[in-house]
């Protein structure tokens, strides 16, 4: 300690966006250094393995192989949903209690960092992790699907030529097969998976502001996730049965507080090769932003009053 004392510096106050970006980048780095990306190996095995799930089919030889494409999409999107939701919940549930337990939160809040900036940064860090994870999985899925689609297309075109199909019939066949391969709707479906995981991260953040443990936050979040899939049915039962105004009000409040995750299952149609309408994507994006923002603000209200 024989060095001269450091020269005085005057720091700028810093913007909200700047601080949020610093905390988000840090949260992302923290999670990456926990080696969470090892799961990509599991995803690769599932995606490549889904190539070999050659289910019995009841279609003619001209459609042979398309069921494998469906299988790849179905397994990949299913695994993406599972991994992204688990990541979103567990990572968010882990970050806040860990900072409190290790007292690192004291050192952060003792700097000129508003509590909303801290929460938003942590949430964005997790969302960034989910985004990068999904992007990597998407690249892998698209690559496998592209290779397999090309193989099927060349086989089918060969068959069509040998049977002497007309050019219009061949063009239709090509269009049908390419419709089952990687396309914009499939990317839209991946984005829907991302929206769902982002909502879950925001919800886990809200729960972790009053929960005392990661386990409690994770269990409650998963519970709400499953309830969210039946929310619409429950609401229909309550509202459709002509119940009293109080019950209706409670049902409406529940509908506002809990997202209807059934809406996010629309990508099932994409697996079957249907096009995802842009209007639907816009609607789901709006719902995702609403709930993520709603849960973040609610978290802030609780966290602002919290004492450490």
């Amino acid at each position, binding site marked *: 300690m024989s060095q001269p004392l450091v020269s005085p510096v005057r*720091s700028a106050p810093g913007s909200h966006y700047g601080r949020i970006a610093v905390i988000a980048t840090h949260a992302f780095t923290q999670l990456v250094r926990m080696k969470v990306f090892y799961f990509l190996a599991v995803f690769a095995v599932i995606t490549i393995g889904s190539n070999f799930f050659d289910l019995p089919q009841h279609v003619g030889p001209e459609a042979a192989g398309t069921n494998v494409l469906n299988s790849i999409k179905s397994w990949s999107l299913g695994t993406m949903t599972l991994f992204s939701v688990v990541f979103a919940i567990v990572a968010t549930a882990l970050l806040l209690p860990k900072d409190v337990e*290790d007292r690192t939160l004291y050192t952060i*809040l003792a700097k000129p960092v508003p509590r909303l900036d801290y929460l938003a940064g942590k949430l964005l860090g997790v969302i960034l992790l989910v985004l990068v994870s999904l992007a990597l999985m998407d690249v892998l899925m698209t690559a496998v699907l592209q290779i397999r689609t090309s193989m099927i297309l060349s086989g089918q075109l060969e068959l069509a030529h040998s049977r002497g199909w007309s050019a219009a019939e061949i063009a239709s066949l090509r269009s049908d097969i390419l419709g089952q391969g990687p396309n914009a709707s499939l990317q839209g479906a991946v984005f829907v998976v991302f929206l769902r995981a982002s909502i879950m991260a925001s919800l886990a953040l809200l729960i972790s502001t009053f929960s005392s443990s990661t386990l409690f936050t994770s269990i409650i979040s998963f519970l709400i996730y499953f309830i969210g899939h039946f929310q619409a049915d429950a609401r229909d039962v309550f509202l459709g049965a002509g119940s009293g105004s109080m019950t209706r009000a409670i049902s409406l409040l529940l509908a506002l507080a809990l997202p209807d995750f059934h809406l996010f299952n629309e990508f099932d149609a994409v697996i079957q090769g249907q096009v995802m309408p842009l209007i639907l994507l816009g609607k789901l994006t709006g719902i995702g932003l609403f709930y993520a923002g709603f849960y973040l603000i609610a978290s802030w209200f609780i966290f602002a009053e919290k004492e450490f």
Partner: protein
Amino acid sequence: MADVIPAVEICDLVKDFKTSFRRQKLRAVAGVSIRIQPGEVYGLIGPNGSGKSTTMKALLGLVAPTAGRCAIFGQDSLRVDSRREVGFLPENPYFYKHLSGTETLRFYGKLCGMRGRVLDDRVRELLALVDLESARDRRLGGYSKGMLQRIGLAQALVQDPRLLILDEPTAGVDPIGSRQIRDLIFRLRERGMTVFLCSHLLEQVQEVCDRVGIIFQGKMVREGRLDDLIAIEDQTEIILRDASPELIARITALVATCPGTELVRSGKPRTTLERLFLRETHRDDP
């Protein structure tokens, strides 16, 4: 001094906590008032659970006062802006283990709005200041307790605050590390920085502080300038070097001739065990 804005002003601070089950109130701090002028080193001492840390947390806005008010350089400490002038080192800090020393300081510097060359230079200077240049790229998971405390001190200083708040800064640190931290506090004081520290290691507080407050069961029981508090008013100390036995005998005889004056003790002053330890351990240094 009337126009000087105090670095710390705590007025009649009361803090109640609710216990988990019966929702009964537990009064952690009961009407504490502290005023620290810029440039002072103030020590808050008291046994465990006496309300030291709660007082510091209230000053940092980590807990809201039940009654009373805390201000830092005139700004209410519940306002985020008041934290621009404060560096804080909590008791037994655990920083992010996955970050290296450099990354840790960069992270805290960025939170304070520092960027680019200014931040790079500051990080380099602070690592040199706390003697962690050789461990700058090592992850904090591999740091010793003393190293963690020093990197904690560096993060507290990153934005060059005017007030430094230290909660048990030498807890669990070996005597050499403890001495380094004290030396740093001395040098910060020379530079005019205000330091507010709490500790139950009384000898250390005595060594570095200008003023001291003693808190017990949430109440301030004694406060004032250290010299005033610990001076024994009816005694006088004379320390002689190379005094012969004859001189000692003459002084003793002279004292005996003065009615109402009593020689309480004479003998060789002793060094402290800590000074002995530091002297012996430094002797073997290359």
